[in-house]
């Protein structure tokens, strides 16, 4: 056991932190919130040069060949700084390709992801908003050398900017909802696809994507016909941990900002940080962040080791969802009025906490998964 970052990770962390401070100031974050694109292509290019999109893509596909744990180190920094754009949806969309893609698919897509040429996203949710297979109604039906996709996906992150969409479809009404799910790598510019950005709390460009008779070649089927659901489960598991890492960074930033502010702001002739009511609250926020930290690190380690991780991933996500919201809510409270202004950075984190909580499954969903894993029948 050694619960410190290794040298590679320390370097990655420092590099990412320094890079983001200069390249992604909060003024840019707000500008991107208001923009149509939601990301900066120039910044995207620079990140590609640093190898971020290809961080965990093996070297044989032109990636950096880092571990999953290393990825969470990077994401802790992007969460800490707030980095708008398609980094997380692109990386998490490479998981299914890495896990289930054919050699040809890997060769076709992964090098271009690593170089920053391709933005990916995954279209999972539909009208019901459920993360379980029962919610998948978008149909894919075979037609010659192609499949035809019809239906509407929702909350597809950055779909308006994506080059390819991993679309989770129903190809069969099977014995169980999980049976009959098939994944396709769909060209986002294919005819029949239309896309509209949903206004969401963190302006993270979650889209409605309509598929009208969209043709996708059979060679773009990801994994086997009707057997795609386990690939999505694995993606959700890794995605949950990735999201937790981002949230952890966000919590760290919020706690640091709050403590610094409390030493600075004077009322009744003394810094507000001298009031014990606030001291105990800040001790509590620090504790909430720290308990989150090792839970996330443990899950990231287990995942990185290739060990079964569904339980720990869900534990981390369920816990961190609440923790991030709690920490940022109280951070605003401790700032008083100024904390509620959009112009103050602390509010940016409060919004991300809600967005992060929804991504890859909310608290109740993950608690139910934990309930199953701890043996409740």
């Amino acid at each position, binding site marked *: *056991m*050694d*619960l*410190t*970052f*290794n040298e590679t*990770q320390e370097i990655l962390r420092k590099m990412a932190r320094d890079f983001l401070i200069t390249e992604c100031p909060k003024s840019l974050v707000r500008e991107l919130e208001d923009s149509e694109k939601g990301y900066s292509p120039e910044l995207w290019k620079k990140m590609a040069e640093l190898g971020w999109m290809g961080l965990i893509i093996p070297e044989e596909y032109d990636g950096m060949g880092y571990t999953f*744990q290393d990825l969470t180190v990077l994401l802790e920094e992007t969460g800490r700084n707030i980095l708008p754009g398609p980094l997380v949806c692109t990386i998490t969309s490479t998981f299914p390709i890495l896990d289930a893609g054919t050699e040809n698919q890997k060769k076709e897509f992964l090098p271009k992801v690593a170089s920053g040429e391709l933005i990916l996203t995954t279209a999972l949710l539909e009208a019901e908003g459920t993360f379980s297979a029962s919610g998948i109604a978008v149909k894919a039906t075979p037609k010659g050398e192609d499949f035809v996709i019809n239906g509407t996906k929702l909350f597809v992150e950055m779909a308006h900017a994506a080059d390819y969409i991993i679309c989770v479809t129903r190809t069969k009404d099977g014995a169980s909802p999980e049976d009959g799910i098939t994944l396709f790598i769909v060209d986002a510019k294919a005819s029949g696809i239309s896309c509209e950005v949903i206004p969401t709390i963190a302006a993270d460009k979650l889209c409605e994507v309509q598929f009208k008779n969209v043709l996708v070649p059979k060679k773009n089927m990801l994994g086997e016909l009707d057997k795609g659901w386990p690939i999505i489960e694995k993606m959700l598991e890794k995605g949950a941990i990735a999201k937790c890492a981002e949230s952890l960074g966000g919590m760290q930033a919020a706690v640091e900002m709050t*403590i610094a502010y*409390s*030493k600075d702001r004077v009322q009744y002739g*003394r*810094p507000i*940080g*001298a009031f*014990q009511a606030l*001291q*105990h609250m*800040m*001790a*509590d926020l*620090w*504790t909430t962040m*720290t*308990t*989150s930290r*090792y*839970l996330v*690190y*443990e899950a*990231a*380690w*287990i995942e990185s*080791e290739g060990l079964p991780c569904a339980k*720990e991933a869900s*534990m*981390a996500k*369920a*816990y961190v969802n609440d923790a991030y919201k709690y920490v940022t809510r109280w951070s605003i409270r401790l700032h008083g009025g100024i904390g509620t202004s959009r112009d103050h950075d602390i509010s940016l984190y409060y919004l991300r906490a809600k967005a992060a909580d929804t991504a890859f499954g909310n608290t*109740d969903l993950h*608690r*139910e*998964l*934990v*309930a199953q894993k*701890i*043996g*409740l*029948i």
Partner: protein
Amino acid sequence: MDFGFTDEQIARRKEFSDVCKDLAAKRPAEYVGFESAYDNEPSWEYYKLCAKEFGKRGWLTLDWPAEYGGSGTMMDRVLFSEARGYYGVGGVDVFGIGMLAPTLLAAASEEVKKKFLPPIAAGDVTWCELWSEPNAGSDLASLTATAIRKGDEYIMNGQKTWTTGAHRADWAFGVFKSDPEGRPHHNLVFLLFDMKTPGIEVRPIPFTNGTHIYNEVYLDDVHVPAENIVGQENEGWAIVNLLAGFERSNIDAIMALIRQLEDLVTYCNVTKRNGQPLSKDPLIRNRLAQTACELEAARTLAYRVADLQNRNEMSLMDASALKVFASELGERYASLATDVAGPYGQVKFSRWAPLNGLLEAMYHECFVFTISMGTNEIQKNIIAWYGLGLPRMR
């Protein structure tokens, strides 16, 4: 970042588990919860049996220096604590092994170490902690019991209270005013003494559930050999602080809760209400799962603290955070477990009690962890002042 254990550690863990599992099978029915060892005879006999067994195996001294009988590492001690906690086995004296021994190793004279460490290592003696007084709790330095040097003795007078296990203990460590007129924090002495010394009177105080855990202790002209001092006269406060740093290791309590949750899951799977097992109730599933997440968070933070200790980088802040988080989780768990069992949640150890009365016992015992060993509010002060650098209270 590596949460894994070496093959050697895995083997060690299995050894600890196997022995604790065997000992758990010998546990008397009256032994319910963490503190009952002090309460009744069968439980106390059992506790002593476990202590002897661990002493014989050298497991009470795993992380001691080899010259005093150390036979392992700090991580071995953590693994042993986990096994004991998980199987609900007593026998490791929180005062003697957990607090005093590391303090003596760090700060006592060679004579004191030679005299007191071997019986602790063997599991032969039990210790109690005579610190708190009726008017000196969190503000311990304001205590008034005295130990005045006369020749080669100290003469102790005054009253101590909340003394866990004083009625079972062979020996005590305590802190007293050695110079009642002296400068605050430079007027105290830290002494070790035999509980059978004339002039010591122990009176029980009933715990919320009526059990006999702690006591009042009256000291009336109690003579203690001056050689039983730890540290310097008037500088006992330094020893108090040193010892307090060893108080907050919670891994055994966390493992005990993890085990209790497992048992509660089983209880919910087999217990029917309204025509279906409790485990089918979505609210119960949600609450139990939440607790499981929080327990895992506590466990991983305990590893963090252990990892820091292992590298001699003890962080006051992390240890305090762990103490607060794990103990409050214990309170929440007690409330949850007694809720889930419905009317049975209130039943004491008896034929009607689920899980041998453990649920009801937890409803009482949770305070052991939130209030004693520095209340959670004091721990939050530590985090705020020493960790976060916020201005100290005036």
